[in-house]
């Protein structure tokens, strides 16, 4: 099994159950990745960052086109956070949308 303590953990923020399953399977196949978590809503991910910044995953993959809080709104909210929280965050934007 993977050694989760040394490999980077990943959070996928995506509301699509298909994408969630695909990311999960992709992550399991990838030797370099540790724990994989998913959130359907960006506001829940934001709440987790605010509540327990020390537990946030090493890498966040963010979908832009999300119900409720959009990816852009999430990024704008993150931008207003304190510098030491922001320093912990590594966010990768993933989108196919031409609008945003």
């Amino acid at each position: 099994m993977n050694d989760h303590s040394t490999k980077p953990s990943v959070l996928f923020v995506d509301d699509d159950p298909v994408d969630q399953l695909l990311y999960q399977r992709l992550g399991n196949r990838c030797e370099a990745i540790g724990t994989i978590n998913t959130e359907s809503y960006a506001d829940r991910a934001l709440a987790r960052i605010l509540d327990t910044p020390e537990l946030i995953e090493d890498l966040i993959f963010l979908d832009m086109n999300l119900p409720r809080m959009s990816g852009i709104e999430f990024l704008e909210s993150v931008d207003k956070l304190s510098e030491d929280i922001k320093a912990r965050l590594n966010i990768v934007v993933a989108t196919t949308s031409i609008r945003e």
Partner: protein
Amino acid sequence: MLVSRMTSDQPMILMDPGSRTAPLRYHSLQALGLVDCDPEPQFDRLTRLVQQTLKVPVALVSLVETSRDRQYFKSQQGLPEPWATTRQTPLSHSFCQHVVKQDEPLIVENAVKHDLVVDNLAIQDLGVIAYLGVPIYAPNSTPIGALCAIADKPKAWSEHDIQVLHAIADSVSDAIRLRSAIRTNQELFEEQQAFTYALSHDLKAPVNSIHSLLGELKNDMDDPNVDMDPKLIDLCLTVSGRMKAQIAGLSQFHALAENRHRLEPVSLSDVVLESLCGLRHSIHECQAEIDVEQLPEVVGVQALLVSVFQNLFDNAIKYRDESRRPSVKISGSSIGDEVEVLIRDNGIGIPSQFQHRVFEIFERLHSQADYEGTGLGLAICQRIMALHGGSIGLESEPNVGTTVSVRFKRNAA
């Protein structure tokens, strides 16, 4: 209507609402830039033509707004101040209102001897003595104003004068119709853009999903050490099923753009009952309390309005708050020249920052996992209400409920 009124031999293509021209949507005088806006050469040319050919000092394109107790001059030639600047008068000063009310020409040789207008304040304040006015029509063939020629001395109007004024008034009506056609086209173009975007983006996504899921499925099948994950098949079925619903919704949405529906008097009470009947199973399932007041009659397309109310009731029940018994209250009222129906629920509500989005095509506020949906319901409702010359809006408070307001124009379309 106008064709029968034509006195010249010219064919009236633009006034044929049936076959050749695209059906036009309802637009208010404001939306068409016909009231409370600057004079425009398009109309000023025509009033000047009246002035010159009928040899009168004053010519007007006057739009009568009874609800605002005024006539507004989209174009005026030769009016004294302050009327030339304000470009409107109260109806106490309006001969044109009679043209609109009767839907026929008003011919006055001498106002002080004419029973209908002898007490009209325009005689003393605007110096109207001789008056010839013929109706101007909205694209839906209702009279909305008059093109008129005015003289400050008695004048015997000739048959030729009346014919010429009719022909020019028809040009005014055509100009208004053209404006409405351009506006309708603009709206259709914008909707087409949104539609194309929706097709390319929102339907491409599920195809990609199914493609990836099948790829994963093949991976599992090719690997003898791995059991096939049944979740892959389940998701394939879910996604393709949703896509089916989306395509059906899109077809319905697109068919509405055609706009070839007959408007008839419709009882909103019947519409609401029929909508509720279609949802009786889900209403029964969640024990929702439904309260319907007596509702007024409107002019519309029954089947389309049932679709609107079914969508709204479906939302009210789907987005219920599980901690309390769902309640939906339907009430109706008349405000001015509008009929408003309110659908008030006690559901989960919509946060204010998302409220403006809910009428957009394919816009959804919840993941499919929490609430199934195509993101088309309210977009379809909005389009149907636009076809009725009405509107739809909502107010909502999270955890309290949502009130959807559906408005109809009394004299629409």
